[in-house]
């Protein structure tokens, strides 16, 4: 929901903190995920993830979440799917070129990032979306990545 996701951006520091606690917990639970099998837990985790992130961020389930690098404003809500910042078409009032009634996702992202401890992550260049991951759980993917149990590499590169 539009109003919800804008409220989240205004409290991005709180959500950053929640994520910082939640993520290690997910990773710590990896033995559980492994015993049950990542493939088998994918479906129920996905349902929960979609419900929670859908309600809070209007998550589009791209499967490679970068919310902590985008001021808690989901870039997949940008009509141009931009993952690296605003286009040049932002209106003078900060609204979107394509959807004039919507605040630019990246104007929000910038403001959100200013409230966050690690807001400077917004300056990292994000590589393009891997469309094979659309609809999959970004949470479980993060667990696999942190435990090195996946061959896929990190999707971001820090700026020099």
């Amino acid at each position, binding site marked *: 929901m539009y109003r919800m996701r804008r409220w989240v951006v205004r409290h991005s520091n709180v959500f950053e903190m929640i994520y910082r606690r939640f993520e290690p917990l997910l990773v710590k639970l990896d033995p559980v995920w492994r015993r049950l099998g990542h493939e088998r837990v994918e479906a129920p985790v996905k349902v929960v993830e979609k419900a929670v992130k859908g309600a809070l961020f209007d998550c589009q389930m791209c499967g490679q979440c970068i919310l902590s690098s985008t001021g808690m404003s989901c870039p997949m809500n940008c009509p*141009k799917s931009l993952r*690296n910042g605003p286009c040049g078409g932002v209106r003078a009032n900060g609204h979107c070129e394509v959807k004039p009634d919507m605040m630019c996702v990246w104007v929000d992202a*910038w403001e959100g990032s200013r409230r966050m401890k690690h807001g400077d992550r917004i300056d990292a260049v994000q590589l393009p979306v891997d469309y094979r991951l659309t609809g999959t759980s970004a949470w479980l993917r993060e667990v696999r990545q942190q435990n090195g149990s996946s061959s896929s590499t990190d999707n971001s590169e820090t700026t020099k």
Partner: protein
Amino acid sequence: MKFDDEPVPGYSLPILPGHVSPGRLERVLRAGKFAITSEIDPPDSADPAEVLKRAAIFDGYVDAINATDGSGANCHMSSVGVCSLLTRVGYATILQISCRDRNRIAIQGEILGGAAMGACNLLCLTGDGVQAGDHPQAKPVFDLDSMSLLEIARRMRDEQRFDSGRRIEMPPRIFLGAAENPFVPPLDWRPHRLAKKVAAGAQFIQTQYCFDIERLREFMLKVNDLGLLEGPDRVFILPGIGPLASARSARWIRENVPGVHIPDAVISRLEGAENQKEEGKRLCMDLLHEIRDIPGVSGAHIMAYRQERSVAEIIEATGVLDGRVPWYPGRDDPKALNPESPEAVPL
């Protein structure tokens, strides 16, 4: 400026140390000259003569010609088509690729094709939304964004690899550019976003129309503070300018063209003039004068949509080229003139 190894039309210049492309634009910029670029409005036609005619208007005044890629999301001849026609007679071109219409497979193919046809410069753009153009029912692609496009193009050139990792036998020797709009929100992020583009591979920047010199000054100060204008990986910034035809058209542009910021003072200046079109040109000349004096600016990009002939007038009147005559087919050998130039002798 004259290089002693000026090109034979269709041939490239040798790549100097510290350069990445065999093109003239990079040479001029790295030599510290004030560079001028302009753009062709590609025809709604399959007639090659029409492209050459539109290029001849800039003969002797520009260092490179941008061939726009479906600008404003309107359908026209493709950028790679226009560039190919122009490089055949020796013009320096800037190939534009927007992320709106093609996915990464098509885009990487286009980069190789464009480079093979002699385009030495590539401008990586996000692209206007399809709602802005004549095909609002089209599917917006946006598989990449301007940043990931830059990154992929840089790796194609420097690492000789496609995004898939597959090896490219002969890499595209291209000078990489991007756009920036310092005049729209979020204003305080714009310099940082430029830094991000430079990190992704941008070597030159052409900005959206500048009608607000104060905003440009502030932007350039911050860009300088970020250290983007020094060292071998420095970026060359060419602010965009253009003549406004009238106060009415300025208002229309402000309302309807995404991302163009025109302050009220500019509109009232046009309204107060007896001849608004002439005043529009004078305003553009004034801006060009001021832009040239901003520290760190490397040139200007003149967008004179439907007023292409005024580009020569603006450059002449401001003297920004300092007596330099940028190369064009026929500059040194009248027999080699663009066949569609008005001065060309029929064969």
